């Protein structure tokens, strides 16, 4: 059930109406059933997996919480992590590692390697809910939170449908207490939720799906052999496609949650206005970047063990962050590029004694030059993210040295600008006013007017195809 389809809005409307008519515990039952229906809509078989990993995690966490024996606690933590990451490994990475191993053997001269790869479907959202489960079990182990007493509450925390498939990855300390306490209907939050949903639909259906037409054409070779112009068109188009797509998804998820009285963490803060790669990662997929920081980078040692260890930790974190996105070397290279970029940025700051600044001025020409530079570095990495294979990515990048022009390129750039410029200016506006969505701090009348204008644009300009959200694959 994609967020931008009629069936989702019928489903959401029914749930919201019934939900606010029920008392708190029954609300939780309703939401759990609804979330499992939502998830089973793809394929009911996947429900077994999520139910199993939820149950294992719940009972392990309870046992960890009760135990004072460090060895036993560690054993239970390891068991839970092994099961959760084991599921992820089997369903997402097994084929990748076997194929890569076979390819390596072939390179060494061993031909006809019997791989016996399992051809299995990737359950939607497994990367997201696994990370949420890992965060929960680790937090319980660290005694940062108390384990949940109720399987219903915990199962709902894991499976609450707005975040289930593609996040934002919720922290147990943030979402679990909301599940465990009665929610109170808040007019302003409800209204904000509606506006977030409209904002998300605009980003996804109008901007991302339109940019996807160009990105797909370039990356599939339909715009002809790669050259500077087509690489630029394809890469810019994909950069805005993935931003519109994922930030749109996050907005709809957050908006849907707000209609139910929940609050989800912000996932995007104008990432293409970042003035450094470090700044970019504070603005892009925030729920993942902070998860990687808290559950991988810091446990690895963070920056506490000297410069070399810091660089190593950065690289490991970004490489694994890349691999988290998908079982393909393209994602590993994407992560590596960001790791190298972050390391170089850190080295430059250390060498020249520069301080990392938050929220560079929107009127400073130097800051804009930095933004343009960072945007293009990010775009370079998107080529690997989008390409089907490493070879395809290098083939496309090979076109950077080829100068060629066709009148159709100009049309493509104008088409792109028509959809990207409004989103860009919305981002600048949000940045200047420090708002989550446009006109957040204006009066109701203005916000209603803006919401209706957005709805009219969505109605008129939505690309028609059912384009799955990119992050549904991860």
């Amino acid at each position, binding site marked *: 059930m994609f967020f931008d389809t*009629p069936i989702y809005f019928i489903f959401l409307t029914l749930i919201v109406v019934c939900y606010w008519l029920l008392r708190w515990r029954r609300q939780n039952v309703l939401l759990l059933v609804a979330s499992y229906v939502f998830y089973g809509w793809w394929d009911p078989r996947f429900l077994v997996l999520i139910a199993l990993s939820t149950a294992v995690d719940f009972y392990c966490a309870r046992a960890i919480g009760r135990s004072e024996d460090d060895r036993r606690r560690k054993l239970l933590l390891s068991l839970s992590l092994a099961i959760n990451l084991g599921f992820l490994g089997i369903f997402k990475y097994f084929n990748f590692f076997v194929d890569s191993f076979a390819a390596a053997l072939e390179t060494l001269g061993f031909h006809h390697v019997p791989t016996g790869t399992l051809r299995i479907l990737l359950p939607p959202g497994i990367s997201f809910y696994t990370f949420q489960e890992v965060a929960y079990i680790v937090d319980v182990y660290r005694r940062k939170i108390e384990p949940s007493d109720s399987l219903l509450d915990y199962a709902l925390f894991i499976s609450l449908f707005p975040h289930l498939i593609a996040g934002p990855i919720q922290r147990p300390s943030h979402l679990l207490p909301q599940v465990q306490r009665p929610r109170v209907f808040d007019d302003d939050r409800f209204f904000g939720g*509606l506006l977030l949903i409209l904002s998300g639909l605009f980003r996804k259906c109008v901007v991302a799906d339109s940019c996807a037409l160009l990105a797909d054409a370039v990356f599939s070779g339909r715009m002809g052999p790669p050259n500077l112009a087509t690489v630029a068109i394809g890469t810019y188009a994909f950069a805005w496609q993935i931003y519109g797509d994922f930030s749109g998804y996050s907005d709809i998820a957050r908006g849907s949650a707000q209609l139910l009285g929940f609050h989800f963490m912000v996932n995007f803060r104008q990432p293409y206005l970042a003035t450094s790669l470090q700044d970019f990662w504070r603005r892009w997929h925030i729920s993942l970047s902070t998860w990687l920081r808290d559950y991988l980078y810091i446990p690895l040692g963070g920056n506490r063990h000297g410069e070399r260890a810091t660089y190593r930790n950065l690289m490991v974190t970004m490489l694994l962050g890349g691999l988290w996105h998908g079982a393909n070397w393209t994602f590993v290279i994407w992560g590596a590029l960001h790791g190298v970029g972050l390391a170089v940025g850190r080295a430059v700051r250390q060498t020249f004694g520069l301080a990392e600044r938050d929220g560079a001025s929107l009127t400073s020409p130097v800051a804009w030059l930095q933004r343009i530079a960072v945007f293009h570095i990010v775009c370079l990495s998107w080529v690997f993210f989008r390409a089907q294979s490493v070879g395809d990515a290098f083939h496309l990048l090979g076109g950077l040295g080829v100068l060629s022009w066709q009148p*159709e390129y100009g*049309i493509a750039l104008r088409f792109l600008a028509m959809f990207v410029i409004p989103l860009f200016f919305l981002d600048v506006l949000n940045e200047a006013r420090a708002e989550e969505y446009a006109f957040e701090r204006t009066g109701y009348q203005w916000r209603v007017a803006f919401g209706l204008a957005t709805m009219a644009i969505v109605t008129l*300009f939505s690309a028609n195809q059912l384009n799955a959200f990119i992050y549904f694959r991860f």
Partner: protein
Amino acid sequence: MRASAVLIAGCLCIVALSEAVVRIGFDRVSKIQRRMADEYHAAIDASGGHSPSRVLFVGNSLLDEGIQFDTLHQRLAPAWDARRFVVEQTYYNDWYYGLRRLFQEGAHPDVVVVMLTPRQWTRDDTRGDYSAQYLMTARDAVTATRALHMHPTQATSFVLASVSKFWGARAELRNFVLGRAMPDLVRLMNFSSVVDPNVIQDDNVERAAAPRFERLRELAAAHGVTIVALVPPVLDPADGTRGLVRAGERAGMTVLTPVPSGAYPRTFYRDAGFHLNATGARVFTDTLVKFLPGELGGSRAKASRPEPALGSVLSQNDGGVDARGGPRGLPARRAGN
């Protein structure tokens, strides 16, 4: 709460207004929609049993651009009253359900000519929501979701499109608005159009098309209509026409290949060898004018006769074709009974 209520009510009004605008005005302001609505009504009106005999051509942009229909209409008259119903980006499934609806709504021509490429005959999908609205009845739309194994998400959108004109036509509405904002956008779309890179195999075409031909033939026969397939000539000679002809022989449906694929030069096409340009359309139409009367009559009378030589047709009508002209690849032929 008031603000939320106003926003929700406003959004519902926008949706209702969009439905009303599309229902009332879209067919009038959009040239494509208007053309389609006119052709649809003409198709419904095409009842047989009259003199002259009526032939209905259905297909996609290959029919729209590949045949100069006014010329064909004039030159087939008075023996035949030719009409057409073109819906772009349509394939076999669209026309199976499309013809069901046309027959149900009263269309009763003597012959229906379905003009699709072999690849389009074998595709398993449809144009999507647009087809649900413009080519299917609501009941058939539900049946189609099961027959085409649609995912529930896609199926619900499809069924909604069969009852909501706005939902079914929203892609066209967007294209219409974008076309007004950027008149040259169509040039970009043609430039970057999708070409299926998979090689088509005659055996696969035969296997996939034979049961479809049979199904269509039975549908048409149930309404007393003769149905024939017309294969448009594309640049690539290995387009699977042989498989389609064999499928026609197996299923007892006539497959017309007046001009084999690969026979026309590159200069006859406006794109990568798929859609004929004005020159190609003129030559192809001239060929059809000579070819069709006998074939249409023949298909009804279940008789066969040799077709005119393609090379002579080309040289008569175009003052000679370049070195690639003349019969190439599959000979012009008629399959079936």
